[in-house]
């Protein structure tokens, strides 16, 4: 009881005007190492604001010890729930047990841990293989039965997004004999490497005349490759179809200009589904699935790319 009173007064103190019943949720973020992660942070804060949640944010600066300490502080503070994007998979057992004992539900965002699933409420994340599959399926319908030779820009060799997005794409085009991956090399997820590798593809494939489509494991490499295609005197989006993954703001500019054809979104909105699951759990104890897969939405030139760009450009990408 005393603890409750203390907690309530904490809320009042910190908010100035604490709304009765407003939930306090702690969010321990890995850091801000990439544009996508910065966008995830921004979206989480916006989502919390929309829902009237009092979000306590802690940036772990890429260090697990900071993250564990933040989780412990959240527990001591008596928050209603905790969101965590874990920096590494190992070493979470004891702090998750403490949260469980304090009856504070924990939701994992974007990355998994190797602890027992009993210790967290659910995990929200994207299925990387599925993303690749969506891209592949788009190309099958876009090629429309015609012969299509595809070049592929892979992510960093050996990284799980590179492996899974390649696998998914191959699954997506599996039934279509008219589509064939003729060249596949790593562009390291970067714009400059994407451009360089695309230049060599173009030279090797008859100045680009033999290439029908480009599949890039992320948008940044696609943007670099588009530059290379233009410099080779071809029209990206028409002479060579461009499909990639992530849906960062820059690719929407390319879509709007007709230079790219499709992108599959890796949504930075992991918190939305997490808050939904928590609301249902608090309302009547509904246990969510242990893994909530975010939608891998496909965007093409027909999906108002200019508007999508406007909506995303301020998210911190």
């Amino acid at each position, binding site marked *: 009881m005393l603890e409750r009173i203390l907690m309530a007064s904490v809320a009042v*103190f*910190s908010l100035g005007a604490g709304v009765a019943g407003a939930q306090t949720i702690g969010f321990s973020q890995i850091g801000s190492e990439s544009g996508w992660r910065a966008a995830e942070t921004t979206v989480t804060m916006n989502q919390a604001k929309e829902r009237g949640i009092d979000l306590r944010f802690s940036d772990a*600066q890429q260090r697990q*010890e900071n993250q564990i300490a933040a989780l412990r502080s959240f527990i001591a503070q008596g928050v209603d729930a905790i969101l965590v994007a874990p920096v590494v*998979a*190992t070493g979470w057992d*004891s702090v998750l047990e*403490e949260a469980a004992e304090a009856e504070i539900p924990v939701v994992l965002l974007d990355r998994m841990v190797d602890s027992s699933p009993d210790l967290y409420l659910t995990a929200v994340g994207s299925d990387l293989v599925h993303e690749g599959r969506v891209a592949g399926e788009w190309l099958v319908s876009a090629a429309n039965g015609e012969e299509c030779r595809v070049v592929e820009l892979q992510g960093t060799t050996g990284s799980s997004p590179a492996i899974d997005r390649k696998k998914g794409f191959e699954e997506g085009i599996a039934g279509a004999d008219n589509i064939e991956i003729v060249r596949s090399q790593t562009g390291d997820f970067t714009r400059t490497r994407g451009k360089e590798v695309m230049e060599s593809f173009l030279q090797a494939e008859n100045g680009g005349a033999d290439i029908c489509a480009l599949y890039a494991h992320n948008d940044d490499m696609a943007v670099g490759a588009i530059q290379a295609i233009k410099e080779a005197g071809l029209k990206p989006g028409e002479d060579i179809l461009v499909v990639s993954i992530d849906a960062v703001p820059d690719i929407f500019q390319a879509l709007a200009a007709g230079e790219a054809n499709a992108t599959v979104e890796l949504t930075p909105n992991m918190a939305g589904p997490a808050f939904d699951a928590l609301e249902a759990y608090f309302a009547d104890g509904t246990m969510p699935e242990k893994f909530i897969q975010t939608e891998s939405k496909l965007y093409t030139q027909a999906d108002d790319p200019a508007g999508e760009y406007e909506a995303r450009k301020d998210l911190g990408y």
Partner: protein
Amino acid sequence: MNIRALPLYATIAIFLLAYLICYMQFPAMLSTRVIGNLLTDNAYLGIVAVGMTVVIISGGIDLSVGSVIAFSGVFIAVLLRETGMHPLAAFALLLAITTLFGAAMGGMIHLLAMPPFIVTLAGMFLARGAGYMLTIDSVPIDHAFYETMQRAYYLMPGKGRLTLLGVTMLASVILGMILLHRTKFGTNVYAIGGGEATARLMGVAVGRTTVLIYAFSGFMAGLAGIVFSVYTSAGYPLATVGVELNAIAAVVIGGTLLTGGSGYMFGTLIGVLTMGLIQTYIVFDGTLSSWWTKIVIGALLLMFILLQKGLLRLRISH
């Protein structure tokens, strides 16, 4: 009043004042949970800072400790994964290695008359590299004994946990206090920090003491590595980057003179807790950027350096 102890009093006063401010804003800060967390979450830092205090009082510096902690975690994790060794045996082996590593650095500093900064910088790269040689992944440790250690805590009133890790840290501080303030070794450390030539004239075995100082720091870094591996139940070669600097900061905030010769072990404990308190406050607030931790620590450091300069002048004019 003892002028030398002034920085210690300042440290304690700042800590109490900071805690009061935290408590006024967030009453939940004064709970056994938060106090237990402060001890547990900063256990590895506190232990390594005990070693660092001795080194700094002797006028030296040890930059290798952060890497040694990471190496220790990886060493234990890989050893437990590859062999059926009991963790306690692995701990003994590890502590022997890190102590020898420290002693070797101390030996080089003395025999080659090289600055500790350079020797321990080399040690820092060496230990980090050795960790990478063993593995580049985060290796989980699941051993029943580890679980026992993690579950070993005393539940204080108010659900706060006084964990084995926290108690290990407090015990290390007490050990450090005895060593520094009650033994011949401690007196020698202060003497060397006051000036090596004078110390030699006073009959201090400078070489032997230097080796012992860095061996002690290596031992403490190994112990901190064990504690850190229990804390995260994993070994990761990328862990604890820059912890040596946090430890130095804690020692200086704790009132120890960075040029050596003056300082108290107890101050270091307060320094560590002050840094933990800042971090806790920022998490409780939940809207401030975590980088404020660094900014506040920077400001505190600056303040203490100025304070020490001022005291030095005061002492000279008297």
